[in-house]
């Protein structure tokens, strides 16, 4: 293992944070976020346009030569933190992180082959925020977990002059696919491949599902002989899906960090303002100590999240450990912070009107997304050679 990378925030990252935070504080009010969850448009398209188009946050991971900002996972993590802080109903994670990482990986593998030009165009559009995309896998899928073979390549249809491959099958509980223009679909065939599908193409059905986190509404996808364009095949496709899920996992951990920070901030503010027994409730040790413990675990989570972002940004060989560690740690901290937020707000925290429930639902849902903390700890156990009972570590079998 190499030296520990820089875990601080750079000046440019702090500036980026300020810009994103002021956008959200102006245009992402909790009351509006709550109200939106009960409308047909659960994603806020205007807010996304501002974040992606005006601030350029959709293209952070895309190199400048491909129309992006040429930044890294460190900057992308800062935006994720702010999105978590405001439970922003935008497809940042699904489009600017997961789908973008998949395309970047596929493009790097394909070089100048086949129709890389179309991939480049798609990436540029994603970077500009004019197009959004989502990876068609269940939201609970973690990096390295086996994908269920529920979507198959059925080959070109007879009489289809384009000769495009066709996909048939289903993918349940997909995040950020509702507002997506393009779906990136891993599909079984010979070989296994990653395909791009127009979300409005023939045979695509998107069925919104009632989601625990209504600020990131999931949908079930079905494909019925849907025309598709292959982006990557075989190992390159597997690598693209893995890279996408690893990126999503690390950036979701950053989102969980921002969410947890906001839960602590809201609760501390409330504990200073709320009076019972003629005292601020924040003067009771029963409350102070819980908030102190929460703040301590958020400080720890920040180190974990920063380490994962830095490892991805620097192609560090420790990235797999770092990503799973961040997800396991930040996921638990976010859930704890949101639960304490509800509890310490008392009655008001249990209402629909107060935003505490948005944080609780996003935290709990996020802890399952890309693999539960327990699954990530199991991954770490394998990576660092701490096998469970009956398992064998690589060095033990040698």
């Amino acid at each position, binding site marked *: 293992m190499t030296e520990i990378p820089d875990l601080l925030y750079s000046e440019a990252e702090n500036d980026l944070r300020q810009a994103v935070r002021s956008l959200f504080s102006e245009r992402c009010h909790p009351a509006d976020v709550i109200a939106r969850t009960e409308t047909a448009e659960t994603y806020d398209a205007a807010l996304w346009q501002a974040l992606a188009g005006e601030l350029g946050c959709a293209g952070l991971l895309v190199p400048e030569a491909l129309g992006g900002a040429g930044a890294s996972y460190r900057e992308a993590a800062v935006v994720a933190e702010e999105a978590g802080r405001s439970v922003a109903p935008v497809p940042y994670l699904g489009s600017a992180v997961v789908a973008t990482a998949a395309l970047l990986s596929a493009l790097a593998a394909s070089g100048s082959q086949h129709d890389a030009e179309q991939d480049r165009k798609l990436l540029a559009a994603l970077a500009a925020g004019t197009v959004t995309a989502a990876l068609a896998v269940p939201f609970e899928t973690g990096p390295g977990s086996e994908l269920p073979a529920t979507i198959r390549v059925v080959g070109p249809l007879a009489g289809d002059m384009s000769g495009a491959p066709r996909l048939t099958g289903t993918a349940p509980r997909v995040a950020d696919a509702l507002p997506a223009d393009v779906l990136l679909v891993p599909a079984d065939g010979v070989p296994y491949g990653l395909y791009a599908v127009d979300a409005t193409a023939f045979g695509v059905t998107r069925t919104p599902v009632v989601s625990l986190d209504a600020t990131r509404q999931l949908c079930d996808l079905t494909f019925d002989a849907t025309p598709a364009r292959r982006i990557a095949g075989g190992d390159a496709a597997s690598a693209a899906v893995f890279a996408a899920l690893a990126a999503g996992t690390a950036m979701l951990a950053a989102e969980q960090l921002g969410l947890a920070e906001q839960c602590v901030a809201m609760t501390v503010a409330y504990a200073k303002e709320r009076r019972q027994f003629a005292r601020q409730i924040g003067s009771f040790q029963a409350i*102070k*100590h819980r908030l*102190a413990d929460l703040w301590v675990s958020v400080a720890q989570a920040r180190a974990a999240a920063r380490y994962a972002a830095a490892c991805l940004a620097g192609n560090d060989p420790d990235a797999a450990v770092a990503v799973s560690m961040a997800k396991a740690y930040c996921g638990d901290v976010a859930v704890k912070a949101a639960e304490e937020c509800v509890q310490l707000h008392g009655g008001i925290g249990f209402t629909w009107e107060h935003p505490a429930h948005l944080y609780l639902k996003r935290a709990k849902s996020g802890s399952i997304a890309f693999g539960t903390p327990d699954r990530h700890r199991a991954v770490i156990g394998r990576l660092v050679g701490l096998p*469970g009972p009956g398992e064998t570590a690589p060095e033990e079998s040698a």
Partner: protein
Amino acid sequence: MLEASGADDVRARARQLLADHNPATTPPLDFLRARFDAGLAWVHYPPGLGGLGTSRELQAVADAVLTKAGAPDNDPSRIGIGLGMAAPTILAFGTEEQKNRWLRPLWTGEEIWCQLFSEPGAGSDLAGLATRAVPEPDGDGPAAWRVNGQKVWTSQAHQARWAILVARTDPDVPKHAGLSYFVVDMTAPGVEVRPLRQLTGEAEFNEVFLSDVIIPDAQRLGAVGEGWRVATATLMNERVAIGGRTMPREGGMIAGAVRAWRQRPELRTPGLHDKLLRLWVDAEVARLAGARLRQQLAVGQPGPEGSAAKLVFARLNQEISGFEVELAGGEGLLYDDWTMRRPEGANFYGRGPGYRYLRAKGNSIEGGTSEILRNIVAERVLGLPPEIRVDKDVPWKDLPR
């Protein structure tokens, strides 16, 4: 001297010291004294007091040159209280005479220092302490103080030549206002040191009984009644002194747990596996958080995260060592040795799991209990309202005890 770059100047002085005092042939104490006199002991201290009045970072330059040449060091772990607490306090509050008398033998390790703060009746509430210092009626000699009381949890009292002491000089004012700060000669009549055996079976610490101990007024640091301010500065220095280097992954308390897990497959159970992986992640995240803290310090932005470090350290040490005892199964029923001994210093990671488990219980008590640290985080970091205090404006002598 011309304006040389600081690092070059320090390097040149270190080479000159080596040229004048060959470490291979100079007795270690002579070398250390020469090093002090050359201003290379602690370069950020003033000239004449072991320093060059330059920035603290340049110490590493001097250390590198001297270490490479095989020069002896002052074994800082043996004189931690002197270096970390007494010296900065003497520098900040001492008279010229006091600084000249105490700092040199403190730094060279000729004189060991200990700290007489905590009392049986004053732990977390240090300002409530009861050890009394009463002015001696003016005789022919210099004014002095007669001290009576009992101090506790004193590391190295049995080896120390000097102690820093906080005592009550005025019981008629509220508790923080009636304290003064002294330096005690541990060889003076009336100072009695007894080992304090702890639950591990050994005695790292002492009780110190002070019976009619006479302290010359020339050994007072700071003004009469200013003891709390001086003591607070000492305790701040204690926190700064903590820090050090980032340990490697799987260092510290987790090392024993992962070693046992890897070596003893027959002890593995699903529940313990889950616990181990949680602890591994917690330990690694704490290590990264410590590294991040040092990165913040290095660029001059110390954050409030430092307050979190000791809370996490205590909890982790306790949980990991508890895990290790449980993992050991039947062997966890045994203990290596209850014999009363006087170890050289604290070793949180030494001996067997049983010892580590018991020693770790002290980690959430010593140097500020976890409960007090939570108050500090809540009040100073989060800005939550302070505890309701009933003892702030009452004369100390009228407080219920």
